[in-house]
């Protein structure tokens, strides 16, 4: 099933280059409606302002980590059903389990290709 690429995607990462890379991958998959935030706090602010259809967040960020953001999103009536993909590094096994327990929609391990990302998206949106 093709994923609706008109939804607004929120990329959360403290490293600008990383945001750019993720953005590039999403664009290759046809997403053009993309906004960015540099940590969990900023992401929550965007969530309050805009209608977000997908969150792609890094794990390790200052101020508010990806896990805390996930918990905040899942604990909020308004946001709790927004698909949430966590980007983790290889070898962060415990993090993945932790995120799954907290209700993450899926996770993806860096570095990834557009193909892998698409697979995950398919799983999230079916």
């Amino acid at each position, binding site marked *: 099933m093709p994923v609706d690429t008109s939804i607004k995607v929120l990329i959360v990462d*403290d490293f600008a280059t*990383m945001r750019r890379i993720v953005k*590039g991958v999403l664009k290759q998959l046809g997403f053009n409606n993309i906004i960015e935030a540099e940590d969990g706090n900023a992401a929550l602010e965007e969530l309050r302002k805009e209608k977000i259809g997908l969150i792609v967040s890094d794990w*390790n960020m200052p101020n508010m980590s990806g896990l805390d953001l996930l918990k905040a999103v899942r604990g909020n009536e308004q946001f709790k059903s927004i698909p949430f993909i966590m980007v983790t590094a290889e070898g962060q*096994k415990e993090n993945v*389990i932790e995120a799954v327990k907290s209700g993450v929609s899926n996770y993806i391990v*860096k570095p990834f*290709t557009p193909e892998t990302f698409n697979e995950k998206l398919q799983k*999230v949106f079916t």
Partner: protein
Amino acid sequence: MSLNQEKIAQALDVMALEAVTLEKGNIPAMGNIMNALSDLERETTAFQNALLGHLIKACKSYLERLILSEKEEIDPLEEGIHYLQILCHALARGEGLKEDIGWLLNKLGLDKTELAEAPGPQAGQVRDEGGGKTEAKTEAPVAEEKAGSFGLSEEDRQILSDFVMEALENLEAIEVRLIDLEQDSSNSETINAIFRPFHTIKGVSGFLNLGHINKMAHSAENMLDRARNGKIKIEGPIVDLILESVDLLKKMIQCVQEQLEQGVSQKSEVPYEPLIERIEQVLSEQTEIGDKPLGEILIQKGAVTSEDVQESLAKQKEAPEKKIGEILIEEKKAEPKEVLSALRDQKKFSHGNIDLHVKVDTKKLDSLIDLTGELVINQSILRQNQWILGAKDQKLYHTLNQLNQITSGLQRTAMSLRMVPIRSTFQKMVRLVRDLAKNSGKEVALEMIGEETEIDRNVVDELYEPMVHMIRNAVDHGLELPDVREQNNKDRKGTIRLQAYHRGGNIVIEIEDDGRGLNKEKIIAKAKEKRLIKEEGKMSEVDICNLIFAPGFSTAEKVTDVSGRGVGLDVVKKAIEKLRGRVEINSRAGQGSKFIISLPLTLAIIEGMLVRVGKERYIIPALMILESFRPEKKQYSTVEGKAELILSRSKLIPLVRLDRIFGVQGDSVEPWDGLVVSVEYDGEQRCLLLDELLGKEEVVIKSLGEGMKEIKGIAGGAIMGDGKVGLILDISGIFEIAAHH
């Protein structure tokens, strides 16, 4: 037990329901099952049934592997959950399980042994855990292929160059963070802040196919990860390794940058394997170490003796629940106040003050300060306007008064905008001291006090070099080798103390060491040899010490053992004087030395002596003036009718006629008709001949603009109270001009 039944049933229902429809990759459903399993585990502890415990654990571990894509078969989990239901129901009835489910545990847990026996290094395993075996295999070549074409597309070039910039910036930040860590090595937020750049660089370099950078960052990240989990303590060798990793990564990334600029494909030329090996070796040797003890801080502060601490430590062994501070207070060895303050010191660095900041171009700031300065002057011109002075309007005066208050408030704020804490300069010294100590085989502790003291942004940059010079001096020549220190009943570890504070309109920076101090006899001998002084009879101790700043006191040859100091300190003095500051040194033999630098808070305002030469007015920086007087005829002499000299305090000082230098007509043809102001720069004196002293004034320095930047003898201009411009004299330039006349 009946209380739990409902929750147990609920957990079992959730699991059963999710398991039936569970598909590979349905992460949220797996999350639900995982949480239900955890609930079940918690609720069934009362059963104290080992079999149930095993089964839950087996299900959880199998589910974890499903989540991590290490396993794809869902059936075993389904079966496991099925038997969980059976077992729970049986236990609720007070029965056991009739069937042997060893085969199921095997099926669920089989992979555990499989995994443990799997050959290959740790890293390979970790990689597989992440993406799943099949995925990782197909993914890796794709990623490489993709990255192989990177250097070509403009977008990718952009990403690469962004990465270079961002990564370098992040690496810079690590050095600064390390200082915080040295003060409080258990601060997890700081460790995390150091960990993060490595982690991110690793992540991004993976995308960009920068394999060597990826590996190096990964290795450094591993080390930090251990520290983050409290497994190792960040100190000594670990800090060195972190710094080396930072340096190496910087080099590697700069290499990428160069190749990016030259358009060559990326290939590392920096050998990084040896460092990775060393990191791994150190990690395998490292053992856990405790925190920096409170007792040590108290001893440093002089609140207690080390015997007191030893005694109390012994007592602590008998009553381990007591804190060392409590024992010290109970034994009346230390005042509660002292212990509290030591505790604060221990914690001081854990609270990172995060202020909100806006980055502003300093040029904009400068122009703001400039404009405010002009506003202040215009405002005072307005007040002195004849019409206004003659007006009898109360309201006008009231408004003018308010304007006055607002403008001076504005000026204060504008000035403060350019002030920055001296912290960053101090922190740069940490690395320096560490490297110096290592090279010289000395043990050095660096203490910093008053890092929050603010100083003009422009001064901060200029201050760096002289400070490096003085600290190098203190470590190289001031501090003794550990063995020597021990023989002299000193701590093996020498201390360099940096301190900054405000005094009057100045910022004072002290660099203090507890080394051997200056050897006055040797300084005097050296100064005599260099003909800097004739005899020491009249000289005070301070004067003798400060001889080391005299130009020509030291030469390029190594004179390190002359008093242990003196390599080119005149350079330091010159640099500080350029900032319109002063530097001096105090020393006590055997106890150490202290450099004291005093600088004006800002370079934008100068205290000047307003003088008149003919119809022109000039401003002489007050700091450079030694004295002013009207010479008598007998004090004046000439050499061959050319060089003019003034005899003052039994010294012959060359006379400089300001009117001739600037090509104006002065009133005083003979020196005894006018006034001379004696100024000093770089150890030399000159007498400036002028007509009148108009008074002391604080003026805002303004540049004369690009076109007149290079004019010798003039440092800038200032608008005077009456709205006219006065030129500020550049004394060193005047010395030069006079020498050529």
